[in-house]
């Protein structure tokens, strides 16, 4: 157990270093010129040259790489060209907003994905299943920014269900005292139910879209693993005893079907945190790291964008290690196979 733990953290370290190296390679060795990009289209050569010196881009690549890696291990992701602030600090201040949105979106995606997946499996090869599969195709073939835009148009402008998306709270509310950084939790801690409600309503809208966007892969995996479990030998044994369908669905179907979901959640979480997030946060003026990435992109701030991408990659690797441990706990077969 200890040895496999060490091996696992070894893989994690290699992965994290790999992420840093890959991103350096992309941002520095591809034939782009970060100084030229940062200076903008209309900068003079002298301005570009000045930026190049300022950020050490005139040094040999190896020296730059060495500095970059040393900084990386000191958790220093460089300085934003746009704001002049350390990228690490800026990302960390914005992280709670993204995580709050991401967690609720993940919850929605899992509930939706497991619900629809099980429904499709129970009615497999019949009309309900076909409808769910078609929904899955359309949910995964629709551009998330397009759906979000239409949703804002319908829910805010036409029907007035949600207030217009201008950040984490509607106009007229003050943010609660920061404890966890999650507005809903912080407002509850402060005993301010009204703010908590307003924050939750504001949060719900983008979280629903992000959750919907992330759910198709969960539906697919839950459907196929539930079908496999329901058609398994052990489900047949249960039927031979005449167990009620609910018991078979729960004990034989779900229990065994949800295991693969745990590993899949890693992918979905990475997706929720990053994939659709840049687009959703920008459209909803959500002050998280996705919006930071968008702003950096618009202002040609490659260093800030690079910091964002590194954060995403590292988070994803660490998340997967945690999930693998969780899987080990959940599936007795894996635990035994390795726990000698």
């Amino acid at each position, binding site marked *: 157990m200890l040895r496999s733990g060490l091996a696992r953290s070894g893989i994690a370290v290699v992965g994290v270093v790999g992420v840093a190296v890959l991103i350096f390679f992309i941002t520095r060795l591809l034939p782009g010129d970060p100084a030229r990009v940062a200076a903008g289209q209309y900068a003079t050569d002298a301005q570009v040259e000045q930026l190049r010196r300022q950020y050490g881009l005139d040094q040999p690549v190896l020296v730059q790489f060495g500095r970059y890696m040393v900084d990386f291990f000191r958790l220093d992701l460089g300085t934003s060209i746009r704001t002049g602030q350390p990228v690490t600090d800026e990302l960390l201040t914005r992280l709670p907003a993204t995580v709050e949105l991401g967690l609720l979106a993940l919850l929605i995606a899992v509930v939706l994905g497991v619900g629809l997946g099980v429904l499709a499996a129970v009615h497999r090869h019949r009309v309900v299943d076909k409808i769910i599969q078609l929904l899955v195709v359309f949910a995964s073939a629709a551009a998330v920014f397009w759906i979000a835009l239409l949703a804002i148009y319908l829910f805010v402008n036409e029907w007035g269900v949600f207030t217009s998306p201008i950040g984490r709270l509607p106009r007229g509310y003050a943010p609660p005292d920061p404890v966890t950084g999650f507005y809903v939790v912080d407002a509850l801690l402060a005993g301010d139910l009204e703010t908590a409600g307003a924050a939750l309503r504001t949060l719900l809208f983008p979280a629903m879209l992000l959750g919907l966007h992330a759910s198709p892969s969960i539906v697919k995996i839950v459907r196929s693993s539930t079908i496999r479990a329901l058609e398994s030998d052990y489900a047949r044994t249960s039927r031979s005893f005449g167990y009620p369908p609910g018991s078979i669905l729960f004990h034989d179907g779900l229990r065994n079907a949800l295991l693969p979901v745990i590993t899949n959640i890693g992918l979905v979480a990475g997706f929720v945190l990053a994939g659709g997030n840049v687009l959703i946060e920008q459209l909803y003026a959500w002050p998280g790291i996705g919006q930071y990435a968008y702003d950096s992109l618009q202002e040609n701030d490659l260093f800030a964008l690079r910091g964002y991408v590194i954060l*995403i990659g590292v988070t994803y690797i660490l998340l997967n290690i945690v999930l693998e441990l969780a899987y080990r706990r959940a599936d007795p077969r894996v635990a035994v196979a390795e726990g000698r």
Partner: protein
Amino acid sequence: MTPIDNALRGNVAGRMRPGDSFAYAAFGVLAVLIAMGVVVPLLYGDGDVAMKTQGLLPPSWEHPFGTDRYGRDIFLRSMAAVRIDVTLGFAVALSVLVFGSIVGALSATFGRTVDMVIMRITDVFLAFPAVVLALIITASLGKSAWFAAIAVAIAYTPPMVRLSRSKALEIRSADYVAAGRLSGASTVGLAFRHVLPNAVKYPFVQSTLVASWAILDFAALSFLGVGVQPPTPEWGSMIAEGVGDILLGSWWPSFFPGSMILLSAASFQIIGDWLDRRLR
């Protein structure tokens, strides 16, 4: 017996034949889209007749998709965009298929060291959602449609490498290859007759899905402003141009390009699922 009981038993009565009709519909939609993308711009131009018509006209007989804020016909622009977006889907799928399969096959063939190095590299790539990877690559190379297309292709290559490698390994160890060796068939002949077709099957299915994802991610990059630059008609950037209008009540400049993305991406996915069932 209750209905759910029947469902759990997988009773025969309520079963439907696996729907090929969806797949035919998808082929039809894609064919019509491509045909329109080729023919419509030839006959009516790409809608870039700014200022001739009034801006933000709602959909009508004359302008089926309405006009945008500059008075350009959204239907004509959407059709002109087929040439970029659907072509891009095919091009990315093809290059990912070819390049990914080659690297995957090399990885499976050339010993442990090469294999391990390639696998570790793909591991690192897989730590990023494809669209994020494509974003940083495009941002580093510079904002242009070509760079965005290349970035999307790079982002989807590593999963393809893994897939074709695992299929190649599976097939290399398969019985009939061994049997062929015993019966004295040449290695090259074997590779072409058995290994290649089987190793290409799954990557091929995967590549139709890549086409779908590529269309979506490319449109996302253009929406973010790093892909196709206005005024070139492209679905993602057309949606971006319509953002201001939709919030003021004109839904059509963004709605129609987005539904084109939906139709084409969904078609590729349905075709992919269908191929997956057929080739198995």
